[in-house]
């Protein structure tokens, strides 16, 4: 099996851009866009270069007219939707529902809230540091994973990632950091390793259509071009608004549920929210939002 996989890898290494990530099965990768993780969201400069239109609210206001131009709307990176201070959409309702759920669960045992806040009941600003490496658990933990873990450990209750109640609590948890710049800690070696794994996944071609995330989301790919009715945007700044209320599907979605939906469209085996590979991909994506404020609740 290994031999069979290696031979074509050697033969096609130069052709398919594989081999840049080392051994293992013959994998094809989209060419590396050489993102510098330490630049955070500013890595979009020289990448899609659209950040000039959406970096701040003032930038968005100044370029608001792009929203009405079909060929250029993608440059706003959908951030113009964050300017709609509409308090009716289900993203906002989820904050209240999530808060009510947390209250209810904390009433059963206050340790639940202390577990969410890692020792304190105050969640303010804390979500901005996620995903992070949890030394006690020995793994990368996302906000949704923390919620699942705390419900199980403190309350013996199943609140699996991807379940609406988990996502609603996540929206509430993250809304407590709204406006706080995202700061995934790259000085933690375990986080850096997860970033590198997520980076490899971002470029790896998968599924029946042989697409990578990068096939649509790096310069030179489909990004900025029409893909039938859609125009794929930059991955920078994207993780900041998840979980979000997705208007095209009429549901709240965590970023990992979004990965799964993308994979279905790419005809790739979707993974369950909470899968370690999706956690790595979330680390990669969130590092690309480092320095950009948490923007939850939101609609897209």
């Amino acid at each position, binding site marked *: 099996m290994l031999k069979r*996989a290696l031979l074509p890898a050697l033969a096609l290494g130069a052709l*398919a851009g594989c081999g840049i990530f080392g051994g293992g099965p013959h994998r094809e990768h989209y060419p590396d866009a050489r993102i510098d993780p330490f630049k955070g969201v500013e890595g979009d400069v020289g990448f899609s270069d659209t950040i000039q239109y959406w970096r701040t609210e003032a930038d968005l206001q100044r370029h608001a007219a792009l929203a009405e131009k079909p060929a250029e709307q993608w440059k706003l990176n959908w951030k113009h939707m964050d300017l709609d201070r*509409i308090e*009716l959409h289900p993203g906002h309702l989820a904050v209240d529902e999530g808060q009510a759920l947390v209250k209810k669960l904390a009433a059963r045992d206050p340790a639940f809230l202390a577990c969410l806040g890692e020792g304190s009941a105050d969640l303010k600003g804390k979500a901005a540091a996620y995903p992070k490496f949890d030394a006690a658990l020995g793994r990368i933990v996302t906000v949704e994973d923390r919620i699942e873990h705390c419900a199980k450990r403190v309350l013996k209750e199943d609140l699996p990632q991807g379940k609406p109640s988990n996502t609603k609590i996540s929206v509430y948890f993250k809304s407590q950091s709204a406006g706080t710049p995202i700061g995934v800690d790259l000085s933690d070696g375990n986080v850096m390793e997860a970033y590198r794994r997520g980076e490899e996944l971002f470029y790896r*071609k998968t599924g029946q259509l042989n697409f990578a995330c990068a096939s649509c989301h790096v310069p030179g790919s489909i990004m900025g071009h029409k893909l039938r009715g859609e125009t794929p945007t930059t991955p920078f700044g994207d993780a900041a608004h998840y979980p979000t209320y997705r208007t095209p599907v*009429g549901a709240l979605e965590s970023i990992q549920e979004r990965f799964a939906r993308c994979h*279905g469209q790419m005809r790739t*085996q979707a993974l369950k929210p909470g*899968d370690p590979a999706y956690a790595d991909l979330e680390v990669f994506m969130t590092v690309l939002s480092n320095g950009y404020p948490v923007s939850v609740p939101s609609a897209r």
Partner: protein
Amino acid sequence: MKRLVLLAAVLQGLTFAGAAAAQGAAVPDYSAFPCLSHTLPCGELAAREPVRKELEGPLDGNAARGKQTAFARNRGNCLACHVMPGGSQPGSRGPDLSHFGSTGRSTAETFAMVWDMRTVNPETLMPPFGTNAVLTEQELRDVVAFLLSLK
């Protein structure tokens, strides 16, 4: 105005989600192809290597059927990336194919390209329609007939 648009989108989304739920669409299984898992077998699967497919016998393709296959979102969906005459919401990343039949490409060459474009351009974004069995050989023969008819 913006609020109305968003509200309309929300309502439309709800309708769409309701319809999808009513159909109870099964989740297709793509585990025969590479995936991103660290643990499932598909995470260790090799990508299918590029195949230079020779066209055997006469093309025997039906251009009208090929057009349907090329346009259908759940079949070729060539419009995702290419402009083709009569197609709605075409993509813009791939070359405009409006006059493909006048570019001097041979039937065999065209067949090899749609079967697996990686044999022509290793960094192509185009799915290997034949190698990965996205379309059947007859469907690809039909698509080739359609492409060559675009003068």
